[in-house]
């Protein structure tokens, strides 16, 4: 394609692209702007508008003063909950997925296809279908309304994707490499640590980014299996907006939403590049 040849066709394409981008960005822009406006200003004018005075204080209030239900601690503890769920679940599910993907792609054992099939079928099961089994599991393990319970759910659910990602990446590793290692006397885990894992950073970055954003943004399990102080931030935001008695605190609420979205936004800004690169990278050049 030639740069600079600005044809009517090109103009049309740009217009459509800009429109779509605007459609995606508008809600975000509204929330971002509202997070900097006072409640009074929003109430007096409209939900959509440019801040007349910059109300940065909204963020401080949202962070540790705002009242959710009867507790006035802002969203800070819920952010901590989310982090305590997301970080371990991301690390564990990525590592387990790497090992599982390595096992099903590079080792032949009876039933390997079946095991891989069963693990990845999880991708296609609707979330609602899994609620009941998880209710039973959490009750049996006494993990209902605990962060550990959520870590367990996200780790197991995440395995479907992490295994798929890693497996598809590892199948490109030549069998002869495995054979050479076996003759050298390396076993399952030594081959994993010394040969396969060092080849893995591109796919591990993809998996970590994917898991982190999904687990952080997840909402259904959060509201279903936790209440009150145990909720992750996505679930807590709902209580926050629902439990407003007097004046609607749109400014502060918007700030809370912004804070809650910040971690995944940062991951996207700093990791997005690696995500795309990792998805297209091969295990061995």
């Amino acid at each position, binding site marked *: 394609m030639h740069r600079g040849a600005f044809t009517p066709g090109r103009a049309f394409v740009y217009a459509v692209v800009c429109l779509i981008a605007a459609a995606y960005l508008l809600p975000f822009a509204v929330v971002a702007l509202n997070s900097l406006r006072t409640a009074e200003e929003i109430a007096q004018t409209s939900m959509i508008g440019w801040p007349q005075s910059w109300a940065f204080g909204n963020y401080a209030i949202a962070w540790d003063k705002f009242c959710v239900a009867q507790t006035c601690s802002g969203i800070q503890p819920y952010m901590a909950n989310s982090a305590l769920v997301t970080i371990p679940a991301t690390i564990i599910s990525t590592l387990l997925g790497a090992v599982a993907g390595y096992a099903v792609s590079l080792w032949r054992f009876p039933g390997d296809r079946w095991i891989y099939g069963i693990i990845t079928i999880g991708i296609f099961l609707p979330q609602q279908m899994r609620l009941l089994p998880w209710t039973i599991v959490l009750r049996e393990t006494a993990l209902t309304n605990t962060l550990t319970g959520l870590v367990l759910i996200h780790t197991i659910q995440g395995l479907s994707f992490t295994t798929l990602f890693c497996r598809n990446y590892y199948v490109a590793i030549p069998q002869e490499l495995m*054979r050479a290692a076996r003759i050298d006397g390396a076993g399952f885990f030594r081959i994993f640590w010394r040969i396969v894992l060092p080849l893995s950073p591109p796919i591990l970055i993809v998996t970590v980014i994917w898991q982190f954003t999904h687990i952080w943004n997840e909402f259904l399990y959060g509201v279903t299996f936790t209440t009150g102080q145990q909720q992750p931030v996505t679930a807590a935001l709902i209580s926050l907006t629902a439990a407003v008695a007097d004046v609607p605190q749109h400014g502060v609420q918007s700030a809370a939403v912004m804070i809650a979205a910040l971690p995944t936004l940062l991951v996207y800004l700093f990791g997005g590049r690696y995500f795309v690169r990792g998805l297209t990278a091969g295990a061995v050049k």
Partner: protein
Amino acid sequence: MSALTIRDVSKKFGATEVLKDINLEIGSGEFTVLVGPSGCGKSTLLNIIAGLERQSAGTIRIADRVVNDVAPKDRDIAMVFQSYALYPSMTVRQNITFGMECRNVPRPQRDEAVARVARLLQIEALLERKPAQLSGGQRQRVAMGRALVRDPLLFLFDEPLSNLDAQLRVEMRMEIKQLHQRLGSTMVYVTHDQIEAMTLATRIAVMRQGVVQQFADPETVYNRPANLFVARFMGAPPMNTLPARLEAAPDGTVAVIGDVRLPVPAEAGRWIGREVVLGIRPECIAESTRHFTDTPGAVITMTAPVEMVEPTGAETIVVLRLGNERVLGRVSPDLRHRPGDTAPFTVDTRKVSLFDPTTGDRVV
């Protein structure tokens, strides 16, 4: 003592039988080459010897120990792969020492071993590089180094030179040969290059569709091929094979091909009056001034039409008609035959082979 014994080994992948009743006995210090067309089961056999693949039936013995149930690492073997299979994230040094690392060999001993192979293969300058920073030939050397750093009972090579360019291949071939002479180790070498097989082997096993066709020293395989397949597979250009009829002649037996009568060995007598396939190497057909031997009656001269001429530099390949069959001859490059000429040729009949036309097996 035999270094490696393969007894009645067969291998099935599902319903397809890839190896059928392989029997090979390889002596200590031998350089055995497994050769055959693509897909004939060479790598599969090598992998079975290594323990990387399990045979469906039969026994493998290494140094008189049955190793059927022994893991690859405990078979005391070293292997070089076609793709070299260097560990991409490790340096050359780590690649070479990985086996020792897995066996918990102490560090001073490892360093000493690396130094020894690096000197032997002249890769001292490459030790801290990663495989991606090496040329094809250098990678090949490192792959060799990884095998040579051990002192195994058996070296296994799976087409180690097939990814190199022609010149490097010839160089490395010589180096491997020297290495074998120097180390005196037992080696099993897979290739589909018959020149590699001829130059390296002390014995060659020619395989086809999972069956060993012939297992003999290079000279025998070349001059007395066990069947038509071996005759045509070994040698470039390949052996001429033409239908002939055996007849009694006053001074022995002759093969009649059109109007040409070639004397054949006396043992062929019981085939008199029957059709055979006669095999004759191109180098046994040359210009009429060539002196093959003084043995009376071993050489005949004939005139034949020339159909095509292929100069290769060192010699010229001519396609000519022998009793109406197309055959290849190898003549001196100084001759300037032209297609359409009729020229005199001399044929050395001492090394003709005769094959049964129905089974393809060697008769004489």
